[in-house]
């Protein structure tokens, strides 16, 4: 109760006066103090995003919703609104611009990922079919598929003889993720696939992959991936960066699974949740960048 009351008073009352006093003392507005005082990357951009969102000025509040093309104009608008002298604080304009690009880029990336997720796998679509066959050829190059509908699909961890029904709510995003990992980290993918056939600790490679697509997607959607992406990309994050994060999850989940030694595959959801919590915990760190280490980037 006290915490709520304090939170209410702080954001509605004290915060304003505190900012006013600091402005008098330093001669700088909050945005300038953040840009000057915090390290570039997620530390700075998250604070800027928070500050803009709480602002009483419409121009500032609107800044977290502008698209890439309007960023420059928006920065000029903010400097005018806050009466910031460009000569006195030379780095400010560029810093704020980078922050706004990152903020708008994250939103755009989410929309792109969401659009791909919404495309259901369609076996009448040649492009979809091509990618599915490509996945097979990348993982098991020395063995040909005997037919399009065959039990062989179970060898790479689909549920039955036709993978099309396994993509479900992840749609083409699930397949594109699987293909990306196999294409860019081919030897790792084959190694993980062979480990996933372990007689006791084994799991179904492809559908666990689709489950991890869901994890990457929900972390992006909830905003939890901001710390990672703001640190990784000093501008607009691309689809590529989402796929890279997926690769990190697949690689790390496999390691995690074998370290935990679960009783059987039936306990998958328990360990999936445990892994999810672990990743969420890592992403709380301002300085976090979650990329594949020990193996070279494509």
């Amino acid at each position, binding site marked *: 109760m006290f915490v709520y009351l304090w939170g209410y008073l702080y954001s509605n009352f004290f915060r304003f006066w505190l900012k006013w006093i600091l402005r008098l003392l330093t001669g700088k507005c909050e945005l300038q103090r953040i840009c000057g005082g915090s390290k570039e990357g997620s530390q700075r951009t998250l604070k800027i995003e928070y500050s803009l969102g709480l602002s009483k000025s419409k121009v500032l509040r609107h800044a977290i919703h502008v698209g890439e093309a309007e960023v420059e104009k928006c920065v000029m608008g903010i400097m005018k609104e806050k009466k910031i002298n460009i000569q006195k604080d030379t780095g400010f304009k560029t810093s704020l611009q980078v922050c706004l690009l990152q903020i708008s880029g994250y939103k755009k990336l989410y929309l792109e990922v969401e659009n791909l997720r919404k495309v259901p796998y369609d076996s009448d679509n040649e492009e979809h079919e091509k990618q599915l066959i490509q996945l097979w050829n990348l993982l098991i190059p020395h063995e040909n598929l005997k037919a399009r509908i065959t039990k062989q699909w*179970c060898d790479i961890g689909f*549920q*039955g003889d036709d993978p099309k*029904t*396994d993509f*479900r*709510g*992840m749609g083409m995003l*699930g397949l594109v993720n699987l293909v990306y990992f196999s294409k860019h980290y081919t030897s790792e993918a084959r190694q993980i696939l062979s480990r996933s056939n372990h007689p006791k600790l084994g*799991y*179904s490679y492809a*559908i*666990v992959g*689709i*489950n991890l*697509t*869901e994890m990457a*997607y*929900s972390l992006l959607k909830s905003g939890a991936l901001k710390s990672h992406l703001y640190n990784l990309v000093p501008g607009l994050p691309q689809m590529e960066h989402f796929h890279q994060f997926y690769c990190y999850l697949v690689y790390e989940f496999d390691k995690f699974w074998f370290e935990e030694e679960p009783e*059987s*595959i*039936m*306990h*998958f*959801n*328990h360990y*999936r949740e445990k892994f999810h919590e672990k990743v969420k915990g890592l992403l709380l760190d301002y300085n976090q960048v979650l990329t594949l280490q020990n193996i070279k980037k494509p």
Partner: protein
Amino acid sequence: MGLLSILRKLKSAPDQEVRILLLGLDNAGKTTLLKQLASEDISHITPTQGFNIKSVQSQGFKLNVWDIGGQRKIRPYWRNYFENTDVLIYVIDSADRKRFEETGQELAELLDEEKLSGVPVLIFANKQDLLTAAPASEIAEGLNLHTIRDRIWQIQSCSALTGEGVQDGMNWVCKNVNAKKK
């Protein structure tokens, strides 16, 4: 009567707990049904590795619903979940005619299980929102459901996606929870 004794009385009549087992082939729609029952978002579903469990309050019952993955590879694990089951719900993809035989076989094997003997069974003829879905009557005939005599059973057409028919099925479940034949 004092306040304390009223409270005690309320506490002494808790919801009856019911164990419900949700089985069926992969892609039958078990997880979608489970989420529909729990009024959760059904747009991000992925194939079930292992199982999901959720508790739902309904008509004075606490339904503990176990949704077990339907992939062939993990069907041998189904039997680990048979014990103390009050009602079996078997889900069928009514549009996947190519697998009617397979699903019929799995159901027949379940009905032969000793640990499930006498347990009431509800068969959901799911995916009725699809144009190609077979009607419940056709499935009942194809699966020879009328030959089931050792327990009470019901077939209910539904769409876990739209929610149509799901509540009707669950009403039947609540009515027949205690009808296990010894």
